[in-house]
């Protein structure tokens, strides 16, 4: 399922300016370009994660990028491990 920009800001409960900063920072990488951006459920969950990082975990702006980068790497590793485990079994 894809969301348009206006659907996305409503569902993620953020304003447009904030969203633009997040995209600028590459915290979010929606598909498409400029006026035809498309967002996925993954982007929505990631936006909630960013909000959690800031509001609940008290991570400051600089820290969000670092946290996301490390989280992305953890998921890379987890996917690699899942694939390794799958190959070892087969």
């Amino acid at each position, binding site marked *: 399922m894809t969301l348009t920009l206006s659907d996305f800001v409503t569902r993620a409960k953020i304003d447009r300016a904030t969203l633009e900063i997040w995209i600028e920072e*590459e915290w979010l*990488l929606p598909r498409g370009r400029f006026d035809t951006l498309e967002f996925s459920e993954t982007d929505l*969950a990631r936006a909630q*994660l960013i909000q*959690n990082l800031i509001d609940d*975990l*008290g991570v400051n702006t600089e820290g969000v990028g670092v946290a996301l980068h490390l*989280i992305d790497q953890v998921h890379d590793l987890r996917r690699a491990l899942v694939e390794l485990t799958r190959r070892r079994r087969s």
Partner: protein
Amino acid sequence: MKDPYEALGVARTAPNEEIKKVYRRLARKHHPDVNPGDKEAEAKFKEISAAYDFLSDPEKRRRFDAGEIDASGAERPQQKYYRDFAAEDGDGRYASGSGFADFADTDELFAELLGRRRRSARGADLQAQLAVDLLEAITGASRQLPLPDGSTISLTIPPGVEDGQVLRLKGKGAAAPGEGSPGDLMAVISIRPHRFFRREGNDVRIDLPITLKEAVLGAKVKAPTPSGVVVLTVPKGSTSGTVLRLKGKGVALPKSPGDLLVTLKVALPKEPDAELEAFLATWSPKGEEDVRKEFAP
């Protein structure tokens, strides 16, 4: 639901600031996205965040302390966590890859498993007009092209380039907004016509004037080609419009260069020549042919 003070492990007298501090410490520890493999984390995070939502609302906290309400109904709305999507991440948009370059460089298996590169937003493509002379388009050339940032880049114009053709300079466009690769610079070629060379595909044409004498008697004449002057043999009795083909003197394509087609144009003397007129008046060609016989009705 559990007593919110117990859930956070704070005293009933704890000030708001302390509750916030404790909550954030616990949230950092138990957030499901910080513990992607821990199934318990989600329940634990829900419990502490519900407790915090409850205690950070002064009215709710006051009424709870007064025994007016209990802690039920403090559940946060159902949230989907990023970890649930990241496990799939079908298109690898958020895959980092960069953190494992050391593994990927040394081991094929790791390169395959971790080598996916992040798809970043590219910078915009820029367009620039580039006027080249016809001769440059025929022989190829090297040109300095000014870039938007003030620097210049050396651009090779390949022989055979067409009017309106676009030469793409990878990565010389606008910088990306983030860490994505820059866009491309598109140089749109416009070809300036030449004084006497014309182009027909890969062949080049030129009209070469010769004198009446050279046409009748034959001669060796100097003729310009795109790659310099050559000596051309005009055969005896060349009529105006005769086309001589100079192989390989056209568009300088490395594999199959075009030809230069020289059309001879007989040019009579600009000033009336009394001697020539006198000769022709008395000249009676043997077996005079009808040069316009093809127009005969």
